[in-house]
């Protein structure tokens, strides 16, 4: 253990991978020193674990109805109580974590690469390419995101895939902006000039040299954005435009529990709490990552 730590904190790395390991370890130490960030990380890890193990952890099926067991208050029998169809809310929350994780991952893997590509290409090539791409980005940035997502979903039809598509379509422009700003400072570096003189193509330079250097600030932004993505998805679900019943989706659960709010408070309260906690987790983690990876922008 002490040997490992000594290796990880060595002043003079002996190989490239050693240097990477040291870098990663020091970043982790900086990250771990902030308790709020750790809480955020814990929440996000818990989301992933609950989503993966939902079938094993859930005491009941998320869709099994039992009308004799309607509106049972949270207690020892049902930890979070039951809803209007007698379904176990705890099981539905656990399965709902899958839906939330699915949305978050899908938006991240579609919107971030698009933004990254648009931003780096725009920043590296400049000229009319830059002007055209940035105009398009600006147009999308100037739109109200939720409203646009609403309009998209209403056109494509309600459903979880369409909700993801609508959110991703409105999520990429900030990433493009960040990637472009980073690229503008990177492209004048000597090592880029060296790569160019060695005959590297524009494509190779962008993908091999510029993109990796933009990644850290992009990861920060994506993590912070995930909170907003969760809220937008939950909002769409609440309006009945996201995941469709009987799929357990937290926003839709709040919406159906809303009718019984004054008599059976837990039906709407608990799924909303889940949305709040997970989105808080991403915010806390994103804040911490920003302090470590991207100190200049905090």
């Amino acid at each position, binding site marked *: 253990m002490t040997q490992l730590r000594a290796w990880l904190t060595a002043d003079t790395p002996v190989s490239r991978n050693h240097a990477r390991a040291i870098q990663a370890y020091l970043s982790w130490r900086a990250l771990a020193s902030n308790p709020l960030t750790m809480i955020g990380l814990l929440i996000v890890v818990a989301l992933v674990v609950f989503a993966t193990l939902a079938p094993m952890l859930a005491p009941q099926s998320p869709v099994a109805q039992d009308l004799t067991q309607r509106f049972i208050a949270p207690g020892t029998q049902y930890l979070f109580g039951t809803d209007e169809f007698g379904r176990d809310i705890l099981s539905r929350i656990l399965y709902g974590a899958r839906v939330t994780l699915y949305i978050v991952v899908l938006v991240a893997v579609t919107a971030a690469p698009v933004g990254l590509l648009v931003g780096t290409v725009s920043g590296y090539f400049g000229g009319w390419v830059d002007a055209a791409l940035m*105009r398009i980005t600006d147009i999308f940035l100037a739109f109200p995101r939720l*409203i646009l997502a609403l309009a998209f979903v209403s056109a494509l039809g309600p459903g979880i895939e369409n909700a993801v598509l609508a959110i991703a379509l409105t999520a990429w422009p900030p990433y493009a902006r960040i990637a472009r700003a980073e690229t503008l400072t990177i492209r004048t570096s000597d090592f880029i000039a060296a790569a160019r003189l060695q005959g590297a193509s524009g494509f190779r330079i962008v993908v091999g040299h510029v993109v990796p250097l933009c990644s850290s600030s992009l990861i920060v932004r994506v993590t912070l954005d995930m909170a907003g993505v969760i*809220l937008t998805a939950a909002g769409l679900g609440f309006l*009945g435009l996201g995941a469709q019943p009987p799929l357990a989706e937290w926003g839709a659960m709040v919406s159906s529990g809303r009718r019984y709010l*004054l008599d059976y408070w837990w039906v709407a309260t608990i799924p909303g709490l889940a*949305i709040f906690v997970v*989105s808080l987790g991403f915010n806390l983690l994103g804040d911490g990552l920003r302090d470590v990876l991207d100190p200049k922008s905090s």
Partner: protein
Amino acid sequence: MTDSTVTSATGSSRFPSRYVWAGLKLVGSVALTFFGLLLVTFLIGRVVPVDPVLAAIGDRASHDTYEQVRREMGLDLPLWQQFASYVLQVLKGELGKSVLTANTVVDDIKRVFPATMELATTATLFGVAFGVPMGVVAAVNQGRWPDQIVRLLGLFGYSMPVFWLGLMGLLLFYGILDIAAAPGRVDFANLDVVETWSGLILLDSALQGEWEVFFDALHHLILPAAVLGYLSLAYISRMTRSFMLEQLRQEYVTTARVKGLSEARVIWRHALGNVMVPLITVIALSYANLLEGSVLTETVFAWPGLGQYLTASLLAADMNAVLGATIVVGAIFIGINLLSDLLYRLVDPRAK
């Protein structure tokens, strides 16, 4: 700061043309953005699975009628011609008819918009009244407990689903404590008591001397406005804090302190005075964001505004109304951005 003053003074002979050029660029980019908005709504209208011809004539009409109506609606023309006529229509202020209400979309929006404006404005006032002082206090006490509390409140605001916060507010203040009013804009008995002049019920009732309605409306407004205002509070306090931190590091603050000014005067007058300029942009942006947040808040509080109109039309697949409302909100969004940009240039001489 001295540098920029000098350059703007020496460059004053070229100043008008540069100013005009910047203005033209701004107008051009706004026009382009609006054009993009129309293109997106047009394309959304194209991909809708609802056939607009069938929606107009019903599915019992003959094939000939179908073709005739299709031609009358211009749907047989090439796509770019359809788009051109769509743009012309919108510029003339025609957004089509709503299937749900049988009125023109423009009339509908005129009717419901004041309610949203009343809500969003009150919420912004709430956000500014609490958010700015909180941000200042947090910056002055950087790292100590007031700063942590403000930071946490802000984080909660960023993470809270607004529809859930609204429901919790209703549960607590209406259901349990019974001090807030039920959802809706006024009590049932006070509906249609006040004549609609501006559509802002507080203003109308005050002008017409209907004080009972005024206080009833105020009672109904407080909770939704506070819920929505909390979102803008989170944003405004965070931005105020970071702007203030920047100002408090400046040398003029030290100078003011050395001159013997009271700490309150240094903070609230000198530093905050300089923060006001960027803060205008932040407040304008948060106002625009509240228009969005109001979609969900209005649903929760049965508030008869643009948000509720939009969601009702969405669920009824009333595409004219949905796209019309999208265009209106988008245009306001763009307009507010432009306005804050102009204000910024006007107030801050360095921005020129």
